[in-house]
């Protein structure tokens, strides 16, 4: 009945931080309209994009997210008047910082999706999933988390020996 779903070697983990009034409702609309999109996304609901702390994005990457989406109301539509305007500035700055640290910004997507834009939600989620799938896993933070490394590398034989004796 349905075309055979393509099997992928790598299924990215996508975390979406969305506001409850616009994007969450838009995603609901995608559901009631029975639109289809990749199942990789996990949605976290916030009252407003203004509530979304940059640290959450960092935390998401550290927890193994391969891609992060932040989405809220279009400018001027904020249920809380101006939360999305504050968020816009905050994330404009934060993405520059991540970029400078060496995070590939293709993994971090921002969007405005209104409660009426079920289709746009599907498009944004699908695009990000496909893009990140093509990029492969986000290993940078994962590798850091696995690294059992003390400050300064143990790069001399004396240190290595001392370390091994611990």
């Amino acid at each position, binding site marked *: 009945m349905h075309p055979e779903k393509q099997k992928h070697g790598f299924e990215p983990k996508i975390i979406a931080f969305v506001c409850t009034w616009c994007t969450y409702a838009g995603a609901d609309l995608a559901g009631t309209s029975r639109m289809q999109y990749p199942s990789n996304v996990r949605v976290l609901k916030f009252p407003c994009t203004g509530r979304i702390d940059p*640290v959450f994005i960092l935390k998401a990457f550290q927890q193994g997210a391969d891609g992060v989406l932040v989405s809220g109301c279009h400018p001027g539509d904020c249920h809380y008047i101006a939360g999305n305007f504050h968020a*816009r500035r905050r994330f*404009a700055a934060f993405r520059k*910082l991540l970029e400078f640290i060496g*995070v590939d910004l293709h993994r971090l997507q921002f*969007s*405005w999706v209104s409660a009426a834009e079920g289709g746009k939600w599907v498009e944004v989620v699908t695009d990000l999933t496909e893009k990140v799938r093509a990029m492969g896993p986000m290993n940078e933070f994962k590798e850091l988390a696995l690294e059992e490394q003390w*400050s300064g590398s143990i790069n001399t034989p004396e240190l290595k020996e001392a370390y091994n004796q611990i």
Partner: protein
Amino acid sequence: MMQVIDTSIHAAVAEAIRREAQRLLSTGEVSAIVGYASARRTGAVQPIVINDADSAAQLVFTSASVNNLAVYLTTAKKEIPKTGKIGIVVKGCDLKALVGLMGEFQLKRENLYLIGVPCVGVLASTVQPAVELTSETIAPKCRECDAHLPTGCDFVPDVALPPMVPLETKYATEIARLEALTPAGRWAYWQEQFAKCIKCYACRQVCPFCFCEQCLCDRNKPQMVETTPRPSGNTAWHIVRAMHLAGRCAGCAECERACPMDIPLNLLNRKMAKELKELFEYEAGLEVNESGPLATFTDKDDQSFIK
């Protein structure tokens, strides 16, 4: 080519500071003065708080007067009694920090007596305090200084600044170099830097803007940022630190000076300052701002990155 920087004004500046301090404390106009005094090592200078007119003679100003004294006036530092008017010796870069603190309601202008210092530059943290100030030994921040002469102070020694030698910028060049790398290249660079971090938090301790009662990074319910000095915790700390200083840091570079592991911390701060200037035309300066760039918005802000 190495160039010697003319520091001949220092003697006159120091003398003027001593005289003003003597006057302020003897008339009782201020209850204490935060300034610089000689330290034990040859040529070294350390911060000092004086409460009586006789101690004014201890005050000095040399190219080793590197510290940003603004940090002693924040709520995080309890050493200075918060009663009466406090006098403080400030270079242009330090004044920017004080102004930032006023904008964040941490200090009131009327409680301060600002002794501004005409400054030709201070020594880098990597050299001995007794060496001559040259284009090689000057602190990187001083190479891009735009505040040799602080404005809006209560007292500025009447000393003419010598003509400034144009110096090659360090931060701007380094930022441009890193920006030209691939994300992976930058990641490798910063991981090498962050790997050195021992989480001593000297950068936090010395920063005038880290005046929080409890740092977000010390919280454990929830633990937002890993506290151990492992690479992942270090990276998180430095990202959060840079983000929290974005739009506030005025570039006194004390973090970088205090860092025992020589992590180029101010490079992150300068990068954020550059971005905020490009994005929102904001620069931390010598005038008190009602709201920093991340506490305000306009309806025309850039959203080219938003789908």
